[in-house]
């Protein structure tokens, strides 16, 4: 019962990070700040959601698989964010300044 509450809490926190990331993606002024919002939110949000699902699964094997998925998504997300940002710099898109 307690684990259920914990899992729900983790899922909600994860959902909040996804929401924040999406708002950032829509509202931030340029490609760099949007990437920042997106990758931070996805890494943390997915981490919380994976943790919640792992608790709910009640199996070490499933939890291990979820952990591997999270690590792979973080690896891919960070790398792709870097590639997009580098390409934007090469195209002389100047970072936004207040």
């Amino acid at each position, binding site marked *: 019962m307690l684990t259920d509450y914990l899992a729900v809490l983790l899922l909600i926190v994860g959902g909040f990070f996804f929401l924040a990331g999406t708002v950032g993606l829509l509202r931030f002024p340029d490609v760099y700040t949007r990437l920042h919002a997106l990758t931070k939110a996805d890494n943390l949000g997915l981490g919380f959601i994976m943790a919640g699902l792992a608790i709910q699964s009640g199996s070490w094997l499933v939890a291990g698989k979820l952990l591997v998925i999270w690590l792979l998504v973080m*690896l891919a997300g960070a*790398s792709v964010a870097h*590639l997009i940002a580098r390409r934007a710099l090469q*195209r002389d898109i100047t970072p936004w300044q207040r």
Partner: protein
Amino acid sequence: MATLIPVWFDGLLGLGLVWFAWQALSSDNLFRAIVLFVAFGLMLALVWVRLAAPDIALAEAAIGAGVTGALLLAAMARLNVVIYEQATDNNETSSPPRRRPASELVALLAAGLFVALAWTLYHLPLDTPGLRQAVSEQLANSGVSHPVTAVLLNFRGYDTLLELLVLLLALLGIWSLGQCPRQAEVATGEVLDALSRLLAPVLLLVAAYLLWLGASAPGGAFQAGAVLAAGGILLLLSGWRLPARLTRWPLRVLLAVGPLLFLCLALISLLLEGRLLQYPLAQAGGWILLIEATATLSIGAILVALFMGGNPEPGQPDE
């Protein structure tokens, strides 16, 4: 579990699917259309999950969204479309979409087809067992324990055989159009290098896992082949090129081994059992594994070759 997800979620999913399809079709920016198409594919994969068809969901996500998206992007790169000009000039130059003279007729035909399909769907009985009964009765004779794999590789093996041949034919069509474009060497950077070095072995492992899993759970040759292809495309993008000595025979053998072995086994089964693709009962599991393993290699190789977009053989220089 399923009852926890309310109807509106499914409704939202279905509407979202239609919305993505419409956006992808009506976008006049090619790049945006491709991105929307990939999003549409992922949405469709979710729909398949909700319809309790994880096999198709996997195939749709890997082939429909992933590999096809990569193919479309590669095709766009060769179209010489200057996306950025399009994107920036859009506001000035975009005019309302031209109306083609036949558009009313096409719309009418599409609407008619939609009504006919909806009518048929509405009159389908809700709870039909379909062929589930027949499949589960014969499952023990198929050599595998996953019903989808039993249908794809045994009961209706010739469908899968023909799918493999269609893939090979598509590649032959592309090769007959010319050589693959000589890609300019670009410095891809340390991050992409490190990523591809890390991911290539992982993708190989995942492909083998999906292939092995196919006997008892959702997975199999097409999904595993698509994952292999993803690894190959990643390597190509990070600057790896097929060594010239491998482009003649080794590549051709790899491309054809799956369909050829499938055909050979089909002929052997015709001679042994008197029917095409009627595997000997005791060896069915082994035959399916052999077919799926070679099919995985060929599917992966064919998809990567499709991405290359032409015959990689260094022949006479292009005119």
